[in-house]
């Protein structure tokens, strides 16, 4: 005899709880697609560099100051943002504001230093394809930093206005996931433009 199969689950969470919910999946998808974008940008760099004539690399020995400290600052801001997320998780608003606000300030400093780096370059975007790749890759990254900063600012004011509780805080986790992505992808950009010339690529 046949029998009816009926799903009768016990207690289920209602809505997003903590960091789990569809919103987190959504940002994960966004990050995957954006990571692919940077993958293609770096592919363009390596492909062009591998087939370029000598002299293409305008900076055979890129200056690591202030780029390296700036990189460390950006990566550190990820941990500061995480500290802020933990603050929301524990219901500690002060910690949350320090963490999110701190990450925001570190992000702004990163952007200012990067702007200084751009203005200190002796060549413009049309100098050759190396220059074009450098400015567009770092520029697109900067656009992502900008979006991340807007997200951090929004989260800061929402936390200030007591929007979230330890249970209901999906926006915080999703927003900070994006900030982690912005920081991680910079490591790949930094390695490509500042480290690989020392390893001999396109020199």
């Amino acid at each position, binding site marked *: *005899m*046949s*029998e*009816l*199969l*009926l*799903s*009768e*689950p016990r*207690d*289920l*969470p*209602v*809505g*997003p709880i903590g960091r*789990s*919910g*569809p*919103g987190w*999946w*959504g940002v994960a*998808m*966004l990050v*995957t*697609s*954006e990571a*692919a*974008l940077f*993958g*293609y*940008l770096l592919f*363009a760099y390596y*492909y*062009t560099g591998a087939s*370029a*004539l000598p002299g*293409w690399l305008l900076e055979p020995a890129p200056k690591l100051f202030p780029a390296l400290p700036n990189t460390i600052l950006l990566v550190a801001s990820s941990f500061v943002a995480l500290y802020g997320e933990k603050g929301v998780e524990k*219901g500690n*608003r*002060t910690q949350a504001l320090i963490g999110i606000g701190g990450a925001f300030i570190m992000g702004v400093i990163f952007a200012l230093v990067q702007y200084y780096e751009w203005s200190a370059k002796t060549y413009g*975007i*049309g*100098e*050759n*394809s190396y*220059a*074009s790749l450098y*400015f*567009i890759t770092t520029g697109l990254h900067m656009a992502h930093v900008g979006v991340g900063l*807007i997200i951090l600012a*929004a989260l800061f004011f*929402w936390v200030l206005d*007591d*929007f*979230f*509780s330890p*249970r*209901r805080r*999906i*926006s915080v986790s999703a927003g900070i996931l994006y900030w982690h992505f912005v920081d991680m992808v910079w490591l790949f950009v930094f390695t490509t433009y500042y480290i690989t010339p020392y390893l001999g690529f396109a020199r």
Partner: protein
Amino acid sequence: MREAAFRTPEIGDDTAVLRARLHALWETEPGLKGWLGTVDHKQIGIRYIITAFIVLALGGIEALVIRLQLAGPNLHLLTPEQYDQFFSMHGATMIFLYASPILSGFSNYLWPLILGGRDMAFPRLNAFSYWVYLGAAIFLYSGFLTGAGPNDGWFNYVPYAEKDFNPGINEDFYSLGLIFLGISTAVGAANFIVTAFKTRAPGMAINRLPILIWGTLTASVANLVVIPAVSLAFFLLWMDRQFGTDFFQTRGGGQPLLWQHLFWLFGHPWVYAIVLPAMGMVSDGLPVFCRRPLVGYAMVALATVSVMILGFGVWVHHMFATGLPGLSLSFFSGASLIITYPSAVTVFAWIATIWLGKPVMKTAFLFFASMILLFVIGGVSGFMTASVPVDWQLTDTYFVVAHIHYVLIGINVFPVIGATYFWFPKMTGRMMDERLGRWNFWTMFIGLNVAFLPMHLAGLLGMPRRVYTYPAHMGWSALNLIETIGAFIFAVGTLLFFVNVWKSWRSGAPAGDNPWGAPSLEWSTTSPPPPYNFAVIPTVASRHPLWEDQLQEGEARSSLRRGMTLDQGKESLLTSPIDAAPERIVKGPDDTIAPFLLTVAMMVLFYGMLLKTWWVIGAGAILCLTALLLWLWPRRELLERAPDDHPESAHV
């Protein structure tokens, strides 16, 4: 009201009282606000389908103009520049604005119904992907209609697309338009992926997914990671043209071939993205008319995925004639030959399904079954050009034009029209006319073959593609005249299809819930389905929930009339990715015009970029930001915010 954080879902029967309550919760508001703000996947899906069919008609008219120009030697219906725009716009229209959106439309409409859910995972994102598609179509056509359409073929090779050779605004329209459209495709893909993994009915484990889901899911994973390649390529081209960068300019150490790599890194997976969902339609639709399950379900599902994985490694076969090293050519040639294996698995599964079944010759069956033949013809000509020496002979000839049309009409248009005959009753509650359907099928089938079989020969005789005319003594004249006649026969067939849709929508015979006796969940609800799809969340016990009594594969029966009611708001169920075990109850968003506003803001931004007018760009950016904040603002009703009286707000 304070929402409990955990709840045991109430189990109930499918009753009229429950239906009335759900209807009030899920119904789209009438009037303009509801029209602009709806997040109902069924309305969005139908909009996608209608828009894509209108676009198909536009692209078809362009094709007919092209065919008139080529009907005889030395004709001057179009100037060379106009011809360039017509064939480029025809390609861009069919490939980007029709072939993918039509499949998104069907998947949008069908997915939650097939999966036993109440909506997509991200209903607002779903509305957004439609509006952006529409916006991008308007953007591209506003260029074409003002004489600034793309004029370098749909794959837009540099250096001809660069400003030195192409000073007009045409290529800027095309570049920005495709970046804009890419946003729609990418967010749509993200939505499909999460929907497939998280919103299935309990019990619909991953080995019970209909093949359409496999097809669209696979295509969506590909789209999510390859769309950025083409968006980037067009962005870099736009930078080259407008800001003097050197990405593709040899004079600045740039690489023209980089364009081809970025384009085809996207382009070849894209070819599979616009056929795999359509092959899924055949894999699900054909067995219904053969009165038996698909032969080799697991093999077909795995073939779908492996075609895509291999599809990432074949892009260079579009570039065999560009002077790449021999090793590279061998590798990509080998990969392109191997990809025929999984494709053949699917073809033999279809043939075996017909062979072992009792075919019922409805119009939908004719379209699905003839697709197998067209797939083989298009596949064999593709297999031939996967061989490097053959490709060197045939590249940029009409042989390749014939190949792409057999593939795209055969594996996209034919399944889509079959799918319309198949699912139209579900969407409208009415049957399509079978008699007209047969006329429709035979005129399209004959027209297609008359138009495109001779093109193989024209290509073998050396006729190059993209030429606006040809001299009389080349021996191509008769073939071209036949092709033009075939194209018009095909157009008549398409017109019959539109007439049938129009007529049947108004006065077709009532369909009932399951007119074909089909096995999947969408046929267990009413035609057309109510706004909430299912009054109770079904529990699935097998791969063919509605065929369990006939097939007798096991003891367990799917529960379709009793299940979780989830009626305390616009609720649906999230399930685990592999086993589809219940995981979470989620609240769906109400109708909102935020996606529409964001699209309008993006149109302002893109027109600003096109005209390089900084204040318009600034205004567009600020509008985008505002619309995004309006959209993402945490809401209590979606449980994204602490409830009013949460204890933490008191202290700290």
